């Protein structure tokens, strides 16, 4: 393993608060994963890649973004490896290194937009978010029809008084939220803030 590789492994372990070498590749995470059957690289193999220093290859995997963060894997792991945490770490690394799986550009952009939304408002403004999402969908060279499909939900929700233009009670001290974001993001080189 090269030094860069071991550095990356250490980074993953630190972010996920776990030891990847504890994993003995039993496959229980893949077995219980609700997305296991559609993933390109299942959780067991993601951990294996990290074990062997191939963090970047793992971070490129589509499965990193297919994960629904349901924690089934970590909960049932016989070695108490925080698999879900490792996947979160891989997400963070893939974003920072701009190597996330192409097919999930949308998802990544959405997550970023979600955070930007919170940074701006302190709480999520759903309408802003859905609009941004739809714009992203249209702009990201994906099937525009697919994006339009959910657009139907918009009016439906609005009709049921579910969708608001503003959060129920706006955050007063928005500056502090920004400062919290800046402090957390400062330490790591991150491209989330343009």
């Amino acid at each position: 393993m090269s030094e860069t590789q071991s550095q990356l492994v250490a980074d993953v372990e630190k972010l996920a608060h776990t030891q990847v070498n504890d994993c003995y590749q039993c496959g229980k995470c893949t077995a219980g994963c609700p997305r296991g059957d559609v993933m390109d690289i299942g959780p067991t193999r993601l951990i294996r890649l990290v074990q062997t220093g191939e963090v970047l290859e793992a971070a490129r995997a589509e499965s990193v973004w297919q994960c629904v963060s349901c924690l089934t894997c970590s909960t049932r792991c016989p070695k108490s490896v925080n698999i879900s945490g490792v996947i979160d770490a891989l997400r963070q690394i893939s974003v920072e290194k701009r190597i996330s799986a192409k097919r999930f550009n949308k998802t990544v952009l959405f997550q970023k937009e979600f955070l930007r939304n919170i940074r701006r408002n302190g709480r999520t403004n759903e309408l802003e978010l859905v609009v941004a999402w739809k714009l992203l969908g249209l702009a990201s060279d994906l099937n525009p029809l697919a994006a339009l499909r959910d657009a139907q939900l918009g009016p439906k929700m609005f009709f049921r008084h579910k969708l608001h233009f503003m959060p129920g009670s706006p955050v007063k001290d928005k500056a502090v939220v920004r400062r919290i974001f800046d402090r957390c993001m400062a330490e790591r080189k991150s491209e989330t803030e343009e």
Partner: protein
Amino acid sequence: MAKIGVFTCWCGENIARHIDVERVSKAIESLPGVHCSMNYKYMCSEPGQSLIIDQIKSLGLTGVVVASCSPHMHLKTFRAAAQLAGVNPYMVEMANIREQCSWVHADKEEATAKAIELIRISVEKLRHNRPLQPISVPITKKALVIGGGVAGIQAALDIAAAGHEVILVEKEPSVGGKMAGLSETFPTLDCSQCILTPRMVEVNQHPKIRLMTYSEVEKVEGYIGNFSVTIRQKARYVDVNKCTGCGTCWNGCPNKRIPNSFDFNLGNRTAIYIPFPQAVPARPVIDSSRCIHFKNGKCGICEKNCAAGAINFNDEDKLITEEVGAVVVATGYQLYSIGKEQSNPNLSGYGEYGYGKYKDVIDSLQFERLISASGPTGGEPKRPSDGRVPQKIVFIQCVGSRDNAKGVSYCSKICCMYTAKHTMLYKHKVHDGEAHVFYMDIRSGGKKYDEFVRRAIEQDGALYHRGRVSKITEEEIDGVRKLVVRGADTLTGKPVTVEADMVVLACAMAPTDGATALAQKLSVGYDEYGFLSESHPKLRPVETNSAGVFLCGACQGPKDIPESVAQASAAAAKVLVMFSQDHLTREPEIAHVDESLCAACCACVQACPYEAISIEEIVDRKGNHVKNTSRVNPGLCMGCGTCVAVCPSKSIDLEGFTEEEVYAEIESLLS
């Protein structure tokens, strides 16, 4: 006046390369008490030893210091040599100038200087040493074997075969242990009961063996060669001497639907019962918690039917005390519980496998009963929920084993083998059935073992998936209840879902529940899981640190039948070595009390790890109380010296490491 000879060894080049041996010899000559100082190439060799013997004889030496290797290597050798020349063996000291000097210090000057000091320490100690006489303890040549499984049976038979009396205590109503419940055994597929039952009968009939079933060890006192054991013989309510084992009672008992624990509750038994047809002794027991007579005083059908008049509803537990010289512990194992109930608070169950919730999820010992000819289904694999013959069985290995999060960290060693056996036995009975195995690694080291596993895969077509199972749910599919097993195959990297009729969990092997309590009674150590500790993992595998107590079988760690039997014979051999003499010689390096000075504050009594110290009353000739004092039982003391450290008045001292000797050692270092 001490006349000490110092013999410095070159150990070939080992010592001489880094230590100037000649200079050492010279420097030692002038030390007080040293009468001669010599060196030789190999002190431990025959001529080396002769040199020592000659010098003792010609110079009339009273003590010997050998400066050579670690005392753990050759102290015994040199003590024996000194004894040959008429010097008390405890007047021999060693200075470790090899392992702790020449081998670890490169600078010859420094090493030589240190060697001189090390020898000086030993000389000073020796000047204060006292000759000691080995302690002789008489031996009761009778052994107690605890546990009547295959290991206990083997140990009992071996000891008895040498002509010594044996008491074999078994807590269940019959001997046989777990092996009696198995169907066939790997890797030969011979019938377990066919090979075991002759041995069971033999222990019952052997004139030298007293078999005490339905009994437990209550208390152990005494020490090696002289244990006093109290055994609780539980009320059986059947007079075994009158009973003929005819079976009229259990056949006539109206209370027929009691889950049989021998079948792991898959089958039923009556309130008066023998656990299985080949039980030894073939004498029934009344389960008083279920018997109608004990509930309302009625029924009594068995009593009426018994022609021998053997039923005794007024039977009571009996306490029997026996004197024995050695104890063999063979309490065996149980399966790690996969349900919510755990005997060990560090463990938690496997909720995701639904054991206890889904009837057709069973453990491996239950499966053994299901395919055993003497089992509740007569050997036909029928699933517990509806009696259907399963067309597809999933076997899951490493349930509880190698699972730090919920179970135990160790490998249970036998599951790979018996799971392969299970798939074969199943396929032999249900030819078109499917056997799926989820495993992590196949561990099949042993004679004909790996061939056996391959046979299951290659010839009998068991389908092995390398991966653990995450969840089992029960679903009705096409009108049949199925267990949906969600596992993974890490070799393909994909999840695998199997809709099975039955699931068999290969649960971890764990020590029996009472094992640690028994270990405490015997002062035997045990690990975090409750497996009893052997004295040395390689060189003393059947001894314990409690002298006179030996181990065999799965109470010491996961083990298969051949290993258990081999270990049982080894334990028996150790007992026989002990019994080959009338007296036991023990190292005299034990604690002793200056009773005139002891204030009986009891600190040592509390501190002793072996309960070897007690408070005794001293009386004068007329029987008047003079004082109390602590006293060491030389049979129990192992010589750790903890008592010395806690004694405020130092009225207790440890032979071989007395206060005087140790202070002399330290003072020799005065600069």
